[in-house]
């Protein structure tokens, strides 16, 4: 086994001697996808019936897939609960606060419509216990017809759909034929994952910025891996699973993978770039490749290979100011203003009575920070300092930490409520048609915070205000084709992309540092001396002529 350092030395030597021109091999497009399993579910007897509900389908699934329900129930998709192995903080959707709709507690039927189960209506209790409360279809439907009712706590649409009903993807809802869906099942594709994950935060690309409806069917320019006209990866191609557990976390990120690609069939533990591309991803026998491989030690792959996010015409929300919510229109009714227009002319709301002011952006340059993969949240257990900008989630990492690299982030900014007595962020009760306390309908923050506190098991002192917040979202999807990488000079210049990162040496980013200043002074004095010397020679010559 040759060590990484040894290969680096050999690589440098070969690079410098100009040897070993290695031609990168073009990846061939995969053949059209077809199921490679030995089962055609449409032939199974147990699926030849009219299913009245989701759990009925699950019960049928479990007759063969006996362990599936138990496995799913171990996963974060089910528990929405994650104890951080380093900080010990309780994370997961059940616990975390964010700067969008803030928290799940109190708003369950709306939020849990994206839970992989049926009927989770109260965050203070665990998800339903029944084995068939697991929703197999939301991940395994291949008919693209299975959608959950947006405020239905996980229930799918039935055989009849109300006029004007929409799915959480914003499309008109259609009746769901559970028999057809059950017979279609297969391994999850981008649509299965995307129907929830692309619409986080209440709409298309609202939350992540790098996960949008564009990824249902992206081109190479948008995402070189998932491109329908290219590699056509599913989400699970990278987010490898083992017994219904997926890898790739944004609470405990592998910010620097030193292990690289495993042998075939080996690594099932990470979704890192290195797990396929290895730890020396650039051609180490070329000088530039050698230099880029050394960048990899401190710079995440994403930093150079995702020059922009929110691509393909779907913008992401960049600012959400809750403090202005509640203003009614001239008719005294809740209103909507849509002043943001995308490059291709789509309007996006900039003020909504329910939610306050928004800003949007598309084709955005990320912001960059040291990141060791660890994230802590300003949940109800965390004191905040309202005199400054409050970080809703705190990313850690630094130059001297060997697990850290410089990562790209979407930084979500906004204002959200906090308890002025207790200096904690507040969980509002927003959603609840007919409720006496839901903000959306009663427009009374006090009631909403009181109810939210009760629902989340926290407290509310009775006085609130809004505080400026920031939230960090690592950007890792929408990887551009290799040739569209961030050019060297975008960082290697004054006020380049990494200008906000203090204490790192970037050639070209600091023209005229101490060495340059001293050098220029010496050079200037030399020139001055020469000019004076030349002038004196001229004067001397003139004097001699006169004599």
């Amino acid at each position, binding site marked *: 086994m040759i060590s990484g350092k040894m290969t680096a*030395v050999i690589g440098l030597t070969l690079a410098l001697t100009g040897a070993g021109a290695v031609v990168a091999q073009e990846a061939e497009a995969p053949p059209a996808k077809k199921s490679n399993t030995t089962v055609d579910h449409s032939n199974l007897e147990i699926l030849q019936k009219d299913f009245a509900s989701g759990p009925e389908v699950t019960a049928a699934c479990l007759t063969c897939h006996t362990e599936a329900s138990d496995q799913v129930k171990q996963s974060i998709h089910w528990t929405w609960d994650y104890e951080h192995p380093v900080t010990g903080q309780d994370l997961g959707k059940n616990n975390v606060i964010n700067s969008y709709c803030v928290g799940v507690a109190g708003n369950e039927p709306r939020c849990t419509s994206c839970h992989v189960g049926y009927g989770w209506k109260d965050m203070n209790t665990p998800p339903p216990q029944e084995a068939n409360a697991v929703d197999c279809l939301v991940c395994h439907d291949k008919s693209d017809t299975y959608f959950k009712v947006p405020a239905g706590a996980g229930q799918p649409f039935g055989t009849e759909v109300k006029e004007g009903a929409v799915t959480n993807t914003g499309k008109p809802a259609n009746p769901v034929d559970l028999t057809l869906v059950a017979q279609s099942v297969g391994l999850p594709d981008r649509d299965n994952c995307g129907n929830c994950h692309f619409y986080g935060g209440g709409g298309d690309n609202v939350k992540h910025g790098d996960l949008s409806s564009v990824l249902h069917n992206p081109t190479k320019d948008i995402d070189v891996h998932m491109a329908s006209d290219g590699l056509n990866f599913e989400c699970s191609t990278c987010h490898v699973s083992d017994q219904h557990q997926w890898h790739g976390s944004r609470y405990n990120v592998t910010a620097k993978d030193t292990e690289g690609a495993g042998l075939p069939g080996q690594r099932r533990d990470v979704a890192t770039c290195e797990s396929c591309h290895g730890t020396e991803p650039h051609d180490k026998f070329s000088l530039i490749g050698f230099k880029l491989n050394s960048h990899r030690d401190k710079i995440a792959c994403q930093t150079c290979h995702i020059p922009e996010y929110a691509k393909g015409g779907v913008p992401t929300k960049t600012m959400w100011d809750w403090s202005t919510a509640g203003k009614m229109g001239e008719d005294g009714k809740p209103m909507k203003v849509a002043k943001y227009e995308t490059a291709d002319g789509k309007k996006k709301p900039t003020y909504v009575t329910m939610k306050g002011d928004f800003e949007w952006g598309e084709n955005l340059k990320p912001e960059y920070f040291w990141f060791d993969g660890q994230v802590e949240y300003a949940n109800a257990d965390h004191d905040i300092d309202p005199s400054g900008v409050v970080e809703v989630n705190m990313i850690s990492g630094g*130059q001297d930490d060997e697990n850290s690299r410089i990562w790209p982030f979407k930084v979500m900014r906004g204002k959200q409520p906090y308890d002025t007595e207790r200096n904690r962020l507040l969980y509002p009760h927003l959603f609840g048609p007919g409720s006496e306390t839901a903000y959306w309908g009663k427009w009374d923050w006090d009631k909403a915070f009181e109810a939210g506190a009760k629902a989340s098991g926290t407290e509310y002192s009775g006085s609130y205000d809004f505080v400026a917040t920031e939230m960090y979202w690592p950007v890792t999807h929408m990887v551009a084709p290799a040739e569209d990488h961030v*050019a060297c000079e975008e960082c290697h210049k004054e006020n380049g992309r990494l200008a906000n990162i203090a204490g790192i040496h970037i050639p070209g980013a600091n023209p005229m540092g101490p060495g*340059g200043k001293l050098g220029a002074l*010496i050079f200037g004095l030399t020139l001055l001396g020469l000019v004076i010397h030349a002038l004196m020679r001229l004067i001397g010559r003139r004097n*001699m002529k006169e004599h």
Partner: protein
Amino acid sequence: MSERMVKIYPPFERFWHWSQVILVLVMTFTGFRLYGLHEWIPYQQAVLVHTYAALLLMVLWIFAIFWHFTTGTWKHYVPSADGLGQVIRFYSYGIFKGEKHPYRKAYWRKHNPLQAMAYLALKLLIFPTIWITGIAYLTYRLWEPAASSGLWIEIVGNLHVLAAFGILSFIVMHLYLMTTGHSLWEHIRPMFTGYDEIDLSPQEEAYLEADEPSRIKPVA
């Protein structure tokens, strides 16, 4: 003593000089691009050219060092105080009065004492600084895990550019001094033809005429 044209710059030395001129200019241009002083070529291109030019220059230097030691040419650069005062006086006073340069080139000593010291400083101080820092820069990945490498790379980068300005200052002085003789060409010609006007003692002249007739010509 008689003045003759003597070949004091053999072909290798002239090749070394002019290759170095080209490489140093290329590296100054690309180096200042990398340092952020101009953006006339893409950064990546500057990295490539700068590095490969450095490697060529290093190879050239290996040959040059070998040549200096095998031919004994290194002795030309041994510092000497003999006549130093006169040369300094000339450049700081006599030159303005139209005096003649006090130093006469010998064929075993082609540089005046001030010149020899300047070249020695360049070769022993400025060039090694830029080489060592340049190699350290290039191989940063290999020593990056060392303690306080972040501070050291900063020092390396600053010393590298300081040395670069030092070389640039040397170049302008070098060029300026060519204007101090009768004509520019008189200064440049020896680096092309190899022949320069040298004061020879009768013994030296007799030796050269007898044993190395191709090295000696009458003064043009």
